[in-house]
């Protein structure tokens, strides 16, 4: 069964090295035509901003490797090739370069899309669409004297004016740009940040911290009512691991480091943090702290609040930090909890001390097929009750199960396809599972080999009690691999009039089924009421288990042909879906955060007094609203 015994680690190193090579390739590649034009446009660039970003995954000019109006790397995307088959380009992912024959039909069947009807994005950002920067001259003068690199190039500013909410990407694809930061600044270390914050306070400039740019809460959107000069403080160049303490199993990092670099670099020393949010390729440590992030393997390693030992944050009042590295303290309310989830409203997280673990000796994927979602949830509940959840356990509903199938790459041999057929036959015909009801749980076990095998048996035994059938390692692994790929799929959908989004919540166990059903039905009903011409996709999965509840993810997408204002309709439906979540006992957010998107519900979520507490902290720490992204409160 364990075909890839202890392969996890080396596999990962190989992938990491490959990534490095690709990035290096990007950096070395002779400047192509497009970027010459762009470079010519940034005439005002300061010579100091030219400092090379060698060796870093994330360059200062992010647009060099990443899409300015879509998800992820520029070289990676889904498209329909000349034969009309779906293809995933690039070389970065396992699925890269492969053809997914079933995707076209799935898109057509699910959304009623037609390959003839395209809704392409505006290819290039016209700088005339971007408002000229409102610069605070005195601030800029003093900033120049510090030697900290900055830019007011249109591309740089636009790139930092958004996260990945549907409405943000939709607008970019249409070439529409709203309020953007007036300046981007790249501090190199904690002290740089201290300088920048001091200057911002001195000259009353609005600062918006920027980490990986993967926000899905409108957290990075510049408040349109902001009249001061807005400076985006990009932490991407603060990405060093400062020390690793093997005795205490801790590491100290700069907060700008992105997840994949953090894991890769720690892996090189034989360690990991185990914190793997779905966005880990791009999201940063500081961002995790600022939004209370959650990782896929939290069952073993914990969520960010469990992992953090010490945080340094620069605020207008100075630096906030704890005085020791003790594992737990009883010193009044934990000041880390003012920092975690503050969403950039109080200051910039610059350095973090975090727990690390030796890399797991053995990793094993798995999957279980259940006859229906109800049984699957019952199984997850039992697993949580017995506190034997694997590193990760996720339950997809039937719609996602089908979606997963649509992303199956072309089978290489007759034999595999024959085996697939056999499996399907066994499950649907022999075991009597209804293909329109069955659902799949994907599993990831980690740890010592024997314990993993033991653990695996325990979980499969529980699954069997709920009618679950083991469905192989491949399905499990594919499930997790798809996590990184799915985000690219939205861009493909948007090329063909399909818009969508995912959103999450956490909910007590006894309400999981009810919330899943009701939210999905609400989405369908709202789409119908709002005049959406096609049946929407409403799907969900339980992605995390806790003692008393679960984290549930919803996916929702529809074909917007025939709508005059699709984004407005989309937002109304999303709003209704959140109302439904709250009415069914779900939380406002499990880990995406509140940002500006969910602000209207904040007061009810934490009560008037709670809101007052948070406000008074903000008033003390940042009386002049220097950190003026207006998230959360």
């Amino acid at each position, binding site marked *: 069964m364990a075909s890839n015994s202890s392969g996890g680690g080396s596999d990962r190193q190989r992938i990491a090295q490959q990534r490095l090579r690709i990035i290096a390739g990007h950096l070395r590649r002779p400047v192509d035509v497009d970027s010459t034009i762009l470079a010519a446009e940034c005439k005002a660039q300061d010579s100091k901003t030219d400092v090379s970003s060698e060796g870093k995954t994330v360059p200062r000019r992010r647009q060099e490797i990443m899409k300015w109006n879509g998800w992820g790397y520029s070289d990676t995307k889904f498209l329909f090739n000349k034969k009309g088959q779906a293809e995933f380009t690039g070389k970065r992912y396992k699925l890269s370069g492969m053809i997914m024959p079933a995707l076209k039909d799935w898109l057509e069947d699910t959304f009623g899309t037609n390959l003839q009807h395209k809704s392409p994005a505006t290819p290039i950002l016209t700088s005339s669409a971007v408002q000229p920067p409102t610069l605070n001259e005195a601030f800029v003068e003093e900033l120049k004297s510090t030697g900290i690199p900055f830019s007011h190039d249109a591309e740089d500013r636009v790139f930092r004016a958004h996260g990945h909410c549907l409405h943000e990407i939709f607008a970019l694809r249409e070439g529409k740009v709203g309020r953007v930061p007036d300046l981007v600044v790249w501090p190199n270390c904690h002290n740089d940040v201290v300088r920048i914050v001091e200057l911002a306070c001195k000259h009353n400039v609005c600062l918006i911290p920027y980490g990986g740019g993967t926000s899905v809460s409108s957290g990075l959107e510049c408040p349109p009512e902001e009249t001061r000069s807005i400076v985006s403080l990009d932490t991407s160049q603060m990405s060093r691991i400062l020390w690793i303490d093997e005795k205490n199993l801790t590491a100290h990092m700069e907060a700008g480091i992105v997840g994949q670099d953090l894991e890769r670099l720690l892996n090189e020393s034989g360690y990991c943090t185990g914190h793997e949010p779905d966005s880990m390729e791009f999201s940063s440590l500081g961002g995790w702290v600022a939004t209370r992030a959650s990782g896929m393997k939290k069952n073993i390693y914990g969520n960010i609040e469990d992992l953090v030992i010490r945080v340094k944050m620069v605020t207008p009042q100075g630096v906030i930090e704890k005085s020791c590295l003790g594992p737990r303290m009883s010193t009044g309310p934990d000041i880390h909890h003012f920092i975690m989830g503050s969403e950039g409203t109080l200051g910039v997280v610059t350095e973090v001390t975090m727990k690390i673990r030796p890399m797991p000796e053995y990793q094993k994927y798995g999957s279980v097929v259940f006859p229906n979602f109800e049984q699957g949830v019952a199984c997850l509940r039992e697993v949580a009750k017995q506190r034997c959840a694997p590193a990760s356990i996720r339950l997809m509903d039937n719609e996602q199960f089908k979606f997963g199938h649509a992303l199956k790459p072309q089978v290489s041999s007759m034999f595999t396809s024959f085996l697939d057929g056999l499996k399907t036959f066994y499950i649907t015909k022999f075991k009597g599972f209804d293909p329109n009801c069955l659902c799949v749980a994907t599993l990831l076990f980690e740890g010592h080999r024997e314990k993993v095998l033991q653990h695996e048996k325990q979980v499969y035994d529980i699954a069997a009690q709920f009618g679950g059938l083991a469905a192989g390692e491949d399905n499990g692994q594919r499930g997790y691999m798809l996590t990184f790929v799915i985000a690219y799929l939205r861009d493909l959908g948007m090329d063909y009039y399909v818009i969508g989004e995912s959103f999450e919540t956490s909910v007590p166990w006894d309400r999981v089924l009810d919330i899943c059903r*009701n939210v999905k039905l*609400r989405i369908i009903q709202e789409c119908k009421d709002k005049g959406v011409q096609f049946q929407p996709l409403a799907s969900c999965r339980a992605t995390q288990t806790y003692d008393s509840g679960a984290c549930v993810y919803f996916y929702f997408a529809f074909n917007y042909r025939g709508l005059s204002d699709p984004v407005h309709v989309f937002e109304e439906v999303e709003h209704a879906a959140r109302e439904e979540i709250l009415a*069914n006992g779900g939380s406002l957010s499990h880990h995406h955060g509140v940002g500006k998107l969910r602000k209207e519900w904040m007061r009810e979520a934490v009560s008037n007094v709670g809101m007052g507490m948070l406000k008074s902290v903000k008033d003390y720490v940042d009386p002049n609203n220097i950190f003026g992204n207006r998230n959360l409160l």
Partner: protein
Amino acid sequence: HYNQRDPMLKKRDDFEDVLEERRNSSDLRYALRCYTPVLYKGVPPCKSSMLKSMVLQSDQLHYVISQVSKETGRKTDEVQEEASAILDEMAHCQQLSTVRFFAFTLSKVFKSLFRSICVNEEGIQRLQQAIQEHPVVLLPSHRSYMDFLLMSYLLYTYDLTLPVIAAGMDFMGMKFVGEMLRMSGAFFIRRSFGGDKLYWAVFSEYVKTMLKNGFAPVEFFLEGTRSRTSKSLTPKLGLLNIAMDPFLKGEVFDVSVVPVSISYERILEETLYARELLGIPKPKESTSGLFKARKVLSEDYGSIHVYFGQPVSVRSLAEGRVNRRQFNLVPRHIPGKPGEDIHSFVNDSAYKLVRAQEENMVLKPWVLLASLLLQNQAAGPKEGLPLDELTAQAVWLRDLSRQYGAFLHWPDQMTPSEVVSSSLSLHRGLVRICEGKVQLAVEQGLAATPEEKLLNQAVIVLSCASYRNQALHVFLRPALLASAIHTASSTQKQEVFNSFSFLRNMFSNEFILCPGATVQDFEEASYLLVKTGAVQVSQQEVVVTEGGHRTLAFLIAMLDPFLQGYQVVCRFLCEEATETLTEKQFIPAVRKFIIKHLLAGGLRYAEVLSSDLQKNSLAAFLRLGAVQKIKGYVGFDHLECLVGPPSRAQNTTL
């Protein structure tokens, strides 16, 4: 201001007679035909044993059982057994064979009793759609024992999932019939179980389990009991509360509530009801009694109209009204008293639904004739109404009622006089035509005492009144306004409104008047009276037009018996009620008082003898604080005489 769509334009579906096919093809084949109803999400109906065990194993019931056991010190097993016994007493055990038996028998019975049973098939289609999408609650009006058999019969006929029906325990007394009904899908609930926690838990869980899983539509009567007066009764909230609970707690996405209006051209229980209202004791439900009732089989009861209304989504009713988050903080299996907001939401919904039933009640020409004849009879000791005059008045009233949005089935292919005479002949037990003059058949029979004579008269009058009452909801609001204009001290709009508001408030136990909708009702009434040219309403004034007096007189006369009735009850309380008047003694005492006044000639309306009116008025006086209840005694403090001008204590203004 009032801008509701013109009631004349109210679109209603066409009817189709289900008996027609019965008369042309084999009943037996019909009863044995293949029955394949569409199901909610394809969920097949649940075996009654399975349903019982689901209820007994529910968290809700477990919780209450352990609570009861803790409180009473009894063993859990014992309480559990009691719960199981309650469930056995309650549960339906629907069987298709019994349903088929009923399908056959009822076909025979219906064909001999009724000319036609007309159903709006579009309503059936909507219901079919609703059943597939969400759990369904059927809410038929309740005028006859026939109602729920008829409902199941129709659902069987149209191949719809058979409902399970909440029935009162009194049916259980009828040995064989009770079991038959149970097998046709009825479940039985005790009429009162006050503080019996366990009973309530079993009962509510039973209903919710059926609803949540969508095994079958749940049917019950919002009015709680058969209306003896043909007026809709103030809705009872218990079952509706239970039915809405799964939605409020997020256990289902939505619940569809379907109001059904069943209108009988002639009610089987017509005179039975009148006697009951007069305090002539009714025979207890018994099987032998049912067989004695066989003679009814030989009579002509005209036609029945059944209108399946637009399904109402509980979700949309609750939208913007109920904060469902309140249910998120306590485990859902722990029973809790619904809060004030939930109570008022359910109450308002119940009123809306009863109004929806009323609106789709089909009115026959006889209903208009009964109204006219009653008014004529009350106007004085005349020799009745000449037939042609009655016809002319009926045509006038037909047009008026249509303008008010009545769902009137007046056969337009017949001449008015044909319509009138055919209506009169169907109700020949209640009217007499003598020398071309029509009057109520009140003089018939030999009675020993004047009191007996009076009661005999009253039976006829109350029977007639029950037909008039079918149209009350059409005229109610304009009639309240007409009476308000009549009693107000000036034509000032505010004065008229105050007077309207007072009357409306006083009568809110008597008629279906949605709580808190005074302004809306006033505007609706003004709109209708203005539209028909009876009054003119300006910013300041409400003035009756030259041609409006006839309409106003009719409307005032419509409400007058009730006004007189409340006055006489009021007078009784002032004059005769002593400090020791118990609730039990109230009805007999007030009846005696009224008989005295009727015989003395001081009171014109025999229908004031209706115990329904007496109970309602007492309830109204209690509500208004004019009377107080002290441990079962009824006393009064400062009863304001209703003859005087209406109270100025109203706060509502226009």
